[in-house]
């Protein structure tokens, strides 16, 4: 875990004091809303449908138990007793009042958290693989370099007024759990001739013009990484389409100019600035890496785990879906589902946060992670502790055994909260999860990612859902479009639109037809929805989605 230096503490205290004064000046009338808005956005404060919303960064998704406890305290002290974990490793508080926000930021600073650059046209919270440091398939832990990028990008004077927001994600593994190809810059740690470096992918993104990122460089050394990133963002800063908000993201710049042209420009900029990087960043990185040293893993007999696995079917079902392979024998990565059937995806109550913090302290080497799939991870749990951990999770309604299944749905806040939304997302997610729970089908259906966005900005990642749902406003009525075959992993693809949209009443039966149709179409139970879709294409799925069109054509 990164430990703040005196410089970091001072920087944060000063920044919070500045914002406190800015809030006071807004309240006493010295600042207009037009003047105040960019200032509050740079500190993560939005004004949504019903209230202000404070978006707090969870850098590269990593928290310790004290931080999670403090998030719970803030939820109770200044909000309505819960928080919402987002698709970019942030937590959002939906009900703060303006006067309280400076106190909330000070409370966050007590545990080294902040809301800086969680909004605005800046480099946003740097996200990472939520299994970082634990995954069996990892080349290296991506978090030290993610921390280095956070320090480089925070308050970077050249990059405070970019053409548009800018998102960076890092993974250290071949399996992409960080959706790196849907980010402005995606980084993957790779090894070449025994040396670690970075594959640099640029120009990915979702939103109204979804794009899969393109490889800019297949190998950049650690020393060259920051100058390369600085060159990329500089090129974008100059070339990005400030004339048109909808064309202002890097993905459009790359698309319009071509990857070769961008590479030429980045090469030239890199040559210009390389000498400014004296190597001090590598000294800083070395210190950061020491902070992320692996915990003291233990050895213990696995009898209790094996007995529970054999004798307790509820434990076994949970273990089969919610555990992932750890790089250390005897350990497992535990995913705690925040997707109880019928609950709001990504929401946790203050009590649940405290339970998770406590479990991290007792069984998890004090580490927690937040995934972009809106779940909480305990990355290092010895299998001998799993029966007790599972019992504690059950008591807190946190033991839902559905990771990666149809009810493990990503959903943005949608029109229940968001001022930009065109339709609701949360009730659709709740109804799909409830329906398939009633049908007792989700384990038969197997791995299936449904992702729901309440507007074209695609915070719910619908383009990369195996089944994507996009909520729109069609003549004053909520309408839901389905896309199929999207994939947010290393085999990334953008989903294809299936056809006309469905009303709020018709979308749940439509999803049910689609899933039942898949069960008929798959070769065998091992063939996943995505594999079946890739084998057969859109046509047979369209036929089950639109039986009337099929009947009319016959």
């Amino acid at each position: 875990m990164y430990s703040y230096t005196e410089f970091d503490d001072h920087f944060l205290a000063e920044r919070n004091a500045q914002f406190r004064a800015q809030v006071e000046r807004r309240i006493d009338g010295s600042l207009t809303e037009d003047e105040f808005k960019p200032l509050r956005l740079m500190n993560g404060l939005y004004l949504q449908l019903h209230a202000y919303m404070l978006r707090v960064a969870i850098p590269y998704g990593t928290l310790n138990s004290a931080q999670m406890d403090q998030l719970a305290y803030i939820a109770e002290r200044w909000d309505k007793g819960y928080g919402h974990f987002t698709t970019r490793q942030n937590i959002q508080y939906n009900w703060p009042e303006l006067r309280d926000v400076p106190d909330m930021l000070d409370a966050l600073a007590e545990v080294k958290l902040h809301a800086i650059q969680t909004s605005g046209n800046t480099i946003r919270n740097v996200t990472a693989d939520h299994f970082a440091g634990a995954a069996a398939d990892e080349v290296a832990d991506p978090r030290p370099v993610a921390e280095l990028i956070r320090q480089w990008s925070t308050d970077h004077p050249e990059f405070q007024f970019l053409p548009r927001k800018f998102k960076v994600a890092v993974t250290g593994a071949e399996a992409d759990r960080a959706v790196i190809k849907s980010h402005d810059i995606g980084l993957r740690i790779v090894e070449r001739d025994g040396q670690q470096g970075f594959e640099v992918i640029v120009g990915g993104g979702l939103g109204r013009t979804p794009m899969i990122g393109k490889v800019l460089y297949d190998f950049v050394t650690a020393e060259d990484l920051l100058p390369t990133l600085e060159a990329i963002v500089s090129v974008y800063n100059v070339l990005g389409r400030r004339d048109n908000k909808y064309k202002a993201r890097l993905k459009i710049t790359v698309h319009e100019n071509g990857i070769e042209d961008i590479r030429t420009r980045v090469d030239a900029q890199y040559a210009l600035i390389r000498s400014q990087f004296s190597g001090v960043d590598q000294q800083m990185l070395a210190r950061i890496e020491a902070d992320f040293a692996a915990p003291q893993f233990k050895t213990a007999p696995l009898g209790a785990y094996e007995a529970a696995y054999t004798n307790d079917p509820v434990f076994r079902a949970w273990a089969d879906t919610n555990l992932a392979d750890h790089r250390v024998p005897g350990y497992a990565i535990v995913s705690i589902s925040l997707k109880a059937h019928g609950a709001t995806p990504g929401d946790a109550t203050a009590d649940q946060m405290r339970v998770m913090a406590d479990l991290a302290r007792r069984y998890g080497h004090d580490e927690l992670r937040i995934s972009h799939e809106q779940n909480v991870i305990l990355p290092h749990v010895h299998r001998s502790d799993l029966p007790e951990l599972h019992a504690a999770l059950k008591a807190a309604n946190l033991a839902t055994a559905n990771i990666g299944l149809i009810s493990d749905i990503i959903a943005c806040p949608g029109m229940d909260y968001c001022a930009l939304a065109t339709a609701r997302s949360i009730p659709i997610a709740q109804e799909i999860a409830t329906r398939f729970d009633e049908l007792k089908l989700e384990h038969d259906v197997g791995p299936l990612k449904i992702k729901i966005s309440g507007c074209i900005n695609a915070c719910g990642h619908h383009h990369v859902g195996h089944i994507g749902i996009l909520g729109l406003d069609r003549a004053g009525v909520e309408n839901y479009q389905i896309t199929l075959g999207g994939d947010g992993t290393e085999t990334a693809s953008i989903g294809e639109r299936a056809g006309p949209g469905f009303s709020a009443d018709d979308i749940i039966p439509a999803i049910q037809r689609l899933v039942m149709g898949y069960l008929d179409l798959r070769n065998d139970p091992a063939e996943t929805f995505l594999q079946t879709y890739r084998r057969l294409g859109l046509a047979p799925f369209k036929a089950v989605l639109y039986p009337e069109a099929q009947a009319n054509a016959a």
Partner: protein
Amino acid sequence: MPKPFTPKVVTANALLEGDVIYQTATGWTRNLAEAEVLTDEADADLRMIDALTQADLVVGVYLADVTPETTGPRPTHFREEFRAKGPSNYAHGKQESL
């Protein structure tokens, strides 16, 4: 021909609390049923100008369509229904006191 003017209310968010408010003849209310319904375009323009001068109280002023009923104005669009009531996943927001 210009579209005929449909009934509207002036709405915004409160600066301090951030919640949804509606203009009345004399100030602001948190209850849509108590809002002043504007049926004349020139009148609506004047009420908007009045609201926009109150930047120390309100944020994001605009005119929202309503249907006047005996119990007071009702939203015509579902977005305004959520603003008047609160989110649908929890009984939070205005519905707590309605």
